[in-house]
């Protein structure tokens, strides 16, 4: 059985592609002169419109004290609170008898960047950082040890506004 095709009798002015094409081109040309939002990453790495939030939670950084040692006292609260179980900590004693981390490793692959470690740290030692460039050549490179965490150059996250800690 032959199919009956229904033909719509629209006027040429409506069914012509010329009008739609012109409309599309007009939009395209309008954008050529409009303000550009794209940052040319990685050629360009900073832009006034593309700053990360102060509360961005990226790869970690360990704070150091004035003598250049890690502030961490190996209290064990961060491995305890960590929901991803990505922090490995072995406590030890330094030459002055102070408690310090013998081993402190964060597996950034396991980390879910919740920021609980920074929140729970009583010494304000471990921080999540305002950073997103984490590429590595090997998987092992994503297990950050203490020396690496101390050397991280990026800003640390401000999890809350100090003047308004409860967000009111």
């Amino acid at each position, binding site marked *: 059985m032959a199919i009956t095709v229904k033909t719509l009798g629209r006027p040429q002015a409506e069914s012509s592609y010329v009008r739609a094409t012109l409309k599309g081109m007009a939009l395209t040309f309008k954008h050529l002169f409009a303000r550009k939002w794209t940052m040319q990453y990685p050629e360009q790495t900073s832009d006034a419109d593309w700053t990360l939030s102060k509360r961005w939670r990226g790869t970690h950084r360990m704070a150091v004290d004035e003598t250049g040692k890690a502030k961490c*006292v*190996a*209290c*064990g*609260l961060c491995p*305890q609170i960590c929901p991803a179980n990505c922090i490995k900590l072995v*406590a*030890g*004693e330094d030459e002055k*008898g*102070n*408690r310090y981390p013998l081993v402190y490793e964060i597996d950034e692959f396991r980390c879910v960047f919740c920021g609980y470690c920074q929140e729970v740290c*009583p*010494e304000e030692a471990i921080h999540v950082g305002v950073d997103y460039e984490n590429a590595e050549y090997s998987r092992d490179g994503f297990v950050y040890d203490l020396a690496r965490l101390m050397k991280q150059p990026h800003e640390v996250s401000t999890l809350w506004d100090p003047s308004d800690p409860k967000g009111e």
Partner: protein
Amino acid sequence: MCLVDVEKSPKPVPSCATPVAPGMVVHVSSEQARTARRAVLEFLLINHPLDCPICDKSGECSLQDYADQEGRASGRYADYAKRYNPVEDFGPDILYVPNRCVLCTRCVRFMEDVAQAPTLNVSERGDRAHIDIFEGELLDHPWAGNVVDLCPVGSLLSKDFLNKARVWDFDKTASVCPGCTQGCNTVLETRDNAVVRIRPRPNPDVNRWWMCDEGRLNYGWLNRADRIEAPLVRQAGRLVPVDWEQALERAVEVMGAAAGPWVALVSPGASCEALEAAAKLLAVKGGSGAFRVAEGPEAPLAGVPDLALRKERAPNVHGAVAAGFGRDWAAAVELARRAALVLVVDDDLADVERPVASGPMIYVGTVLPEEARSAAVVLPCANVAEEEGSFQNLRGLRQHYAQAKSPPGMARPAAWILTAIHDALVSRVGTRA
């Protein structure tokens, strides 16, 4: 900290020191009682340092619990510097941190009333009071480690445990101390499959709440790394690792072929179950066995009747005797040289003159000493922390202990090994007529 409100009493009374009287009505959480307790807590916290993150007691500290219950985050004394005194060394295993001390004097009273060897005192008065040690004395009593458990805060610390672990990381397992024939009940605290600390488990019949230092620090061998991990059988003069099936098969073969009297050299550190299985196995073809015990000075805890670190430093001497093993080690070793078969259970054969046996030797043990390398079959067994079993103490009390960590490699409990050999052997040669 235990102030409660009693009706018709003019002020809150300490519940720990107030006898119950007829018609007494006590309000534990009335407003007045809570206020009083809050005030006491505030006093205790004036000089208490805010160093919970580096304190070993953190997580099992009474003061921490109280502060947590009350829930006040800040104190009213923030403007004043806290009292500071340096850490003192009290004895071989004990440190005193005066800053954290709340002067409950539990340690002083333990040394005086329970150990009956007064060593500690409260020196100076008022604000300057602190726990001190008598002139020229040392807190080196064999039971001194108990003051660390008694301390409600982190003021008295064990040097052995210092900065080693956080207490909330531990898995705790009920066990029995393998140190001597007293059979103190213990808790094995393990982390990452290693025993990190041993603490006493209250048992009014055996050890009350106490445990001696020797037992406390006697855990290094439970974590030994040089263990046998697979059954070994002798093939062409060398010990070759095989699976359990082959190893048991070979053991049964060797034992089935050995006709004459058998000799067993067993350890009084093995469980009752293992020793009974060994005795049963020995009975298949007849034989005898003996054990030896390391001895040390007896150290009683004066204030508690019938509690001491016993002379015989093995947990299951009485279990071994009950299973039918003798104490004449020298005779058994002599006999072993002529026996058709020697069965060694968990003894390390140290100081036994080589060759231990002229006939074949079945060695069931945790480690492989030089003396055991001539064995026909070597079967790896679990140690006390890695198996379930029981020990019989010197009062005939048989106490069960649980498994705290997993054994290395293919090691299995000695009782399982000996029972498996026995069953296979009986099905092959039948019991002795």
